[in-house]
């Protein structure tokens, strides 16, 4: 399946992916009203140190610990995509405690959120990838680890 992959050599650490993510999942048409002056809750996060940056989002693991650990049965995997039913989530953070990559964080109302590859919103393909100015994140098929 297609996943998001990171090429940290190309990442500028500009955080644009975070804004594109928050906008894509806001359900709003206009970027300014979605983001301006507001705390944003993106599902991708740029981390880094010493001038090296990389954007972390859900790996859609082959063996997703978050799915197996959620105390509310709120996380499931369908056709390779790991998704959260935010209606069921009770905000216990157990998924944060088990995800080895730091890919989940609470959203605005405390329910968890994570990358669902923009398959649930109107983008249809990850907005972070589309908007990355330097090709530091890509959306493609890769089989084994490179």
């Amino acid at each position, binding site marked *: 399946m297609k996943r998001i992959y990171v090429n940290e050599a190309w990442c500028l650490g500009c955080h644009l992916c975070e804004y594109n993510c928050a906008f894509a999942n806001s359900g709003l048409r206009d970027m300014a009203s979605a983001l301006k002056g507001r705390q944003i809750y993106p599902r991708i996060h740029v981390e880094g140190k010493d001038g090296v940056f990389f954007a972390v989002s859900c790996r859609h693991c082959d063996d997703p610990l978050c799915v*197996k650990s959620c105390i*509310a049965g709120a996380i499931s995997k369908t056709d390779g995509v790991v998704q959260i039913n935010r209606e069921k989530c009770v905000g216990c953070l157990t998924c*944060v405690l088990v995800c080895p990559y730091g890919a989940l964080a609470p959203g605005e109302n405390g329910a968890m959120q994570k990358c669902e590859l923009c398959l649930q919103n109107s983008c249809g393909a990850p907005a972070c990838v589309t908007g990355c100015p330097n090709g530091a994140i890509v959306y493609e098929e890769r089989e084994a680890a490179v």
Partner: protein
Amino acid sequence: MKRYVIIGNGVAAVGCIEGIRSADGAGEITVISAEPHPVYCRPLISYYLEGKTDLQRMQYRDGSFLANVGCTVRYGVRAQAIDPQAKTVALSDGAQLPYDALCVAAGSSPFLPPMQGLETVPRKFTFQTLDDALALEQAITPESRVLIVGAGLIGLKCAEGLHARVGRITVCDLADRVLSSILDAAAAARVQKHLEAQGIRFLLGDSVAQFSADFAEMKSGETVPFDVLVLAVGVRPNTSLVKEAGGETDRGILIDERMATTLPDVYAAGDCAQGYDRSCGARRVLALLPNAYLQGHAAGVNMAGGCASFDRGIPMNSIGFFGLHLMTAGSYDGEVIAADSGEAYKRFFVKDDRLTGFILIGGTDRAGIYTAMVREQTPLHTVDFSLLTSAATSAAFSPAVRTERFGGAV
């Protein structure tokens, strides 16, 4: 066609069903469920009282689950005995159910130590099942004075669930601190303070000497009036079926890394089982939901003739109380590294170049990075550990590790 029987209908049973189906799409699966409900999220019973979920949303799987996996559940029926020679399970409805592979996923039961005068208390409850929560809900009024015996996870979660719906809550515990099995003294003091700020009262290092119908006389001499009593002293793994059938048990049903008990073709998983705890290198009961699923799944795969082992269980907890989140993992062995920052309380335990465990109150972002290090026993000299103690980040790993994680399928 292979016949699978699962005793118990909790999360370990679901893991087992899904494990079986990953390897055998056809075999006949029968689940024996003492509780008369479809599988629900046991940890959510306090969130139910709190109004943060409801009976529909707290279902662990959606309504089409049983039909999709092709599995029969016998509700309201108990397994009474296992005959490992004849390979049958005797049920409370008189049936003898034959099996080719059996999984005991019977969970645990509240432990009730003998207490003076307990029989005189009319409204007393345990807090383990959905029916317990529903009965408790019936018994409370906005004026109720509730006494909870036990300041562990279950007692405190119960207190949180009841808080907005009753008049007053007192929690007592023999231990001198809250959550004594997972927190050190300083962390426990923080949590206690936070709960006290909500109006919950604690009597710690104290226990009930004598119950009367509506008050308890404490060992300390204090008298605590109450209308509703909740007993949350602890739980005991349900081991008797396996023990009586001649299988080895300790605190829990002893299982190997394949989830096999010492009885042929009998497996065990979840709160009733005692499997390998990687963080201490011995077998321990890990009464936690993630562990129940993972053990159940491994058992199911093996029952269906596949090959699965699960030897990476570790104790771990993520709990929130009134907006304060705490996380713990591992076995607090070795040197303690204090790394508080701002409001956050952080303790890391390090031994032989490995992270053995941690305690966090606040500062929980991306904490799964730490949990993975405890589970995988990551050598600390391969990471930037001082960076990690300030915040969990993959920036602390080598570029090669990051390429593996974020540049490939995992």
